[in-house]
């Protein structure tokens, strides 16, 4: 595991089409680094470039587009890099390897989901709020449907969950009937998004909704959360299945 401090950054420049023992060179190198326990490596693809042969390779010309430049980078301690260089030189063939001194300010950490406490939104229980947002299916936010943008915004803001419903018939602010007919696919049905989370979470998200929704209704009601179970990523399904499903059950609280 890489620690903060002095380290070496290795950049390997190869051509996309080059192969080593019949498989792509970059993939051989990546496998080699992976099984030698290197803490991380990234392959990036250039869109144009030239190398030792002095041919310009660009993605514009179809016939040589498999010769685009690839760069593989990884950062490791000096000792590890010295161990790896011999084999790497063999693997790169005609490619180039560059090594430079670098400083690791913050090493990457393993994501250890198994022992992580569940995220804050996974712990809601008891009294909560349900937020319903009523909009039209054809409403847009920038370049995408508004309901998609709202779901993405909620996800980004850690709202526990949201479901989008499409009405089959209805009317709203403009007294104009939205109707979903099977033959001519209407794109202006009523859309309802329903999200449940703690009141503070929803209140802090409210300004974002208000800024995104130009026209619509936001409806808040009190609910009791009976159960909110989830399946942690990376957890063995057999261990997780006892009580964890991606299900949410809620009872509406009558006031």
């Amino acid at each position, binding site marked *: 595991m890489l620690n903060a401090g002095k380290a070496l950054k290795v950049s390997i420049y190869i051509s996309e089409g080059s192969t080593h023992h019949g498989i792509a060179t970059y993939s051989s190198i990546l496998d080699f680094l992976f099984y030698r326990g290197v803490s991380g490596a990234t392959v990036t693809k250039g869109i144009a470039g030239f190398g030792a042969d002095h041919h310009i390779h660009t993605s514009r010309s179809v016939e040589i587009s498999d010769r685009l430049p690839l760069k593989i980078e990884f950062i490791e301690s000096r000792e590890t890099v010295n161990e790896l260089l011999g084999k790497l030189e063999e693997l790169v063939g005609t490619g180039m390897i560059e090594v430079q001194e670098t400083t690791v300010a913050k090493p990457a950490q393993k994501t250890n989901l198994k022992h992580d406490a569940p995220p804050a939104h996974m712990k809601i229980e008891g009294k909560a709020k349900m937020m319903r947002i*009523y909009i039209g299916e054809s409403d847009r936010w920038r370049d995408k449907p508004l309901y998609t943008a709202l779901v993405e915004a909620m996800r980004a803001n850690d709202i526990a969950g949201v479901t989008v*419903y*499409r*009405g*089959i*018939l*209805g*009317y*709203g*602010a403009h*007294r104009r*009937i939205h109707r979903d007919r099977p033959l001519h696919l209407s794109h202006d049905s*009523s859309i*309802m998004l329903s999200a449940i989370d703690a009141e503070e979470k929803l209140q802090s998200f*409210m300004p974002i909704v*208000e800024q995104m*929704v*130009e*026209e*619509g*209704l*936001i*409806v*808040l*009601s*009190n609910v009791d959360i009976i159960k909110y179970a989830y399946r942690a990523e990376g957890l063995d399904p057999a261990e997780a299945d006892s009580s964890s499903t991606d299900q949410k059950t809620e009872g*509406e*609280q*009558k*006031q």
Partner: protein
Amino acid sequence: MREQFEAKMLRIHFGEGDKWQGKPLHEAIVAKCQELGLANAIVYRGIEGYGASSRIHHSSLWRFSKDAPIMLSIIDREEQINKLLPHLDGMVEEGLIAISSVEVIRLSRTAAKL
């Protein structure tokens, strides 16, 4: 423009096959809501469910069933909702009507009355 106020949410659950005076019940109720000047009414079709009579409502792509569960939702001020209630008694023969209290934030481009 932004308004915030207390309101009621009325939800009516019945089957897609239910009729009122020869018309699908959900269309009849939506028409009644418009006639009474309620702010909105939206009909949702469930994909599976059962209700008062315990018969399973199913909407299957293969045999286009006309008996899926229907949920009609109306949000308006209490006095507006109360205008509709007497009509529902006659129209909904078999079904469930639920009312809950909600807080509404209404956003509109132009000033309009809910």
